[in-house]
């Protein structure tokens, strides 16, 4: 089982979050230090803009989870004491469910945002490199990633865009498909316009910046890695444009119906996507009546954003159901896994007895057997061992999964097995029986039946 101690955008303001946000190159060292604490055996740090969470697992298989969480909280408080009152703690099954929700972007600031999955993978890789990942994290984190993938493929939680710049890119893709080789013209400046232009450029588009102030155009075109055009070349830019983003402070229309209608022939009827982010508007609304011209202003884009958010909220319910199902499945599996050490010890014990008896017989009355017969004999004993242990193993796992055994019950079960089979004394298996001849005879009888030979 695991624990999670941390803070996020809901519990702490950015001023607090940034106090414990570690640079990537310091995370490995921090993890090693956390994993060296008395109760912590495994550690992983999820550090994003919106959250810092320390995922830990106890040093021992059935170690104290509360003490482990306290160790983790203490480790975070040592980085910045003021974070302590903002921390939340999840333990055991709650921690697993929380991790699944985080991976599925149900706990994100922007519901359904896809970055968290990559960030979680990166955090897991960093922890693995720091060698602070053990059995518990190895079994939980991949399951969280699986849950997140299921949520993404079976719900529309990540569908639609939820910011004006990303909506702009999405719409451009609905019109043009691939954006590589397309031309984006940025008229004016503004944070949203520049972000949209950069996103389009990152998708492979070429950028042209047009403005009245040559110096400003030069600075902006460098900032967005585009080409600068003076205001006189606006028409030329519009002829080349596939997407136009306007964000000027001009009181009137910068792009009007007459201008675009006049350029239609030179543009050879290509589609034109106009994104008007200015208030008052830069583009005359009437241009939309032109064939192949698509105009979206701030209100239109904001409406798309709010529709996406509403749709994601609806999908979140379905995603929560998947997370719950996966978390319950994980719990059942983890419960069954609690008895694994007992099963392994039981198998080792039986195997040791069988091997010892076999070796004794092969050194004694069965020494005449050839390699093929010996191999057949070994195979027969392995098969017998598997059949013998199949039923108890299955029942143990099923009892553990169905009855949600706690650590004490598991220990009791192991002790009972120990009492009955002297499980933790495998070395004595060969020596303990006083009537070795009887065992020998039984083994030899079995060998004869298996190999079809008579003892001489």
């Amino acid at each position, binding site marked *: 089982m695991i624990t999670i101690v941390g803070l996020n955008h809901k519990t702490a303001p950015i001023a607090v979050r940034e106090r414990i946000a570690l640079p990537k190159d310091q995370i490995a060292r921090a993890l090693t230090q956390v994993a060296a604490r008395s109760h912590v055996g495994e550690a992983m740090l999820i550090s994003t803009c919106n959250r810092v969470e320390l995922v830990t697992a106890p040093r021992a298989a059935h170690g104290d989870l509360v003490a482990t969480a306290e160790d983790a909280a203490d480790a975070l408080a040592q980085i910045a004491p003021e974070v302590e009152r903002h921390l939340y703690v999840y333990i055991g099954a709650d921690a697993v469910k929380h991790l699944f929700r985080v991976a599925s972007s149900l706990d994100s600031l922007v519901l359904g945002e896809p970055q968290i999955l990559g960030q979680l993978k990166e955090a897991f890789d960093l922890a693995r490199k720091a060698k602070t990942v053990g059995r518990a994290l190895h079994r939980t984190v991949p399951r969280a990633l699986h849950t997140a993938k299921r949520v993404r493929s079976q719900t529309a939680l990540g569908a639609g865009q939820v910011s004006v710049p990303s909506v702009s890119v999405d719409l451009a893709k*609905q019109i043009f498909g691939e954006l590589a080789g397309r031309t984006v013209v940025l008229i004016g400046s503004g944070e949203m316009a520049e972000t949209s232009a950069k996103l389009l450029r990152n998708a492979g588009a070429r950028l042209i910046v047009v403005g009245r102030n040559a110096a400003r155009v030069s600075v902006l075109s460098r900032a967005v890695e585009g080409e600068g055009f003076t205001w006189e070349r606006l028409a030329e830019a519009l002829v080349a444009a596939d997407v136009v983003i306007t964000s000027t402070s001009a009181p009137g229309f910068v792009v009007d119906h007459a201008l675009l209608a006049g350029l239609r022939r030179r543009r050879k009827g290509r589609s034109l996507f106009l994104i008007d982010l200015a208030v008052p508007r830069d583009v005359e609304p009437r241009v939309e009546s032109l064939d192949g011209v698509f105009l979206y202003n701030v209100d239109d884009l904001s409406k798309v954003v709010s*529709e996406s958010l509403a749709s994601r909220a609806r999908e979140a319910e379905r995603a929560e159901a998947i997370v719950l199902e996966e978390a319950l499945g994980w719990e059942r599996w983890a419960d069954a896994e609690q008895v694994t050490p007992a099963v392994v010890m039981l198998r080792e014990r039986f195997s040791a007895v069988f091997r010892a008896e076999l070796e004794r017989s092969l050194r004694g009355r069965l020494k005449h057997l050839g390699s093929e017969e010996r191999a057949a004999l070994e195979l027969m004993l392995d098969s017998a061992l598997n059949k013998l242990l199949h039923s108890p193993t299955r029942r143990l796992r099923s009892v553990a999964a169905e009855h949600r055994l706690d650590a004490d019950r598991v220990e009791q079960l192991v002790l009972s097995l120990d009492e009955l089979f002297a499980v933790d004394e495998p070395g004595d298996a060969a020596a303990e029986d006083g009537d070795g001849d009887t065992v020998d005879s039984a083994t030899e009888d079995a060998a004869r039946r298996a190999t079809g030979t008579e003892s001489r």
Partner: protein
Amino acid sequence: MTDIATVAFTLGVVAYSVASTLFFLELARPDAQLGFRRWGPWAMGVAAVLHATHVVGASLITRVCPIASLQFALSLSALIAVVVFLAVRTRFRLHAVGAVVGPLALTFLVGAQFVDASRAESSGPRTLLMFHITANLVGVGLFLLAGAAGAFYLVQERRLKEKKTGGLSNKLPPLDALDRAEHRLLLAGFPLLTFGIVSGAVFAGRLGASGGTELLRAALGYATWLLVAAVLVMRAAAGWRGRRAAWGTLAGVACVVTVMLLYAVRAGGAG
């Protein structure tokens, strides 16, 4: 052989129905599940194979070359549209168009059963007739697909103009991809249509076709040729793309379908 043709026909109808449903569900469902994207084209591919098996089997039974009978010709034109769709689906990002191509193929496959399967009468040279019919069939197949792309263009364009950007819009192909596909398909089909018109004129002359239906069919054939030519020329010369090109294409396809219906009516009457 009869059994094979019948079974292939029945299974083909089922497979086209399944494919159409899958493509339609993909458009209609609020969330796009990856499974649907894989299964639709597979079902359509299986349907196309069964469709081809049916045509070959049935033509062997009736001892009529598939392209020499209107029944098989109707069926084959839809099959060609399906095969071209499957071939260019990924390249032109036309995946969603399967929601139209599937039902279209199903309609043609079933509808052809009501048309006489006997050999078309002609007094012209046999080889030229074969080329004439083949060119027309492939041309019709390409135009049907171009028409489907044009229809999707108009739907997507309207939605984007009306700012309906979520749901269906996300699943329809990009506007430019539809426009490009429509143009390429018209370009590919136009030479075939031209050949079909010219060779058709030869046969019309030899048969001395002069009935009202024959004249209407010929007029519609020429109208199709003119419409498609106009769409292609205006696109190159005056930048007629997008909506105008889509309407022009749809008008051309409507003429083609009407011509085929007239053939079917005549064949039905003959049968």
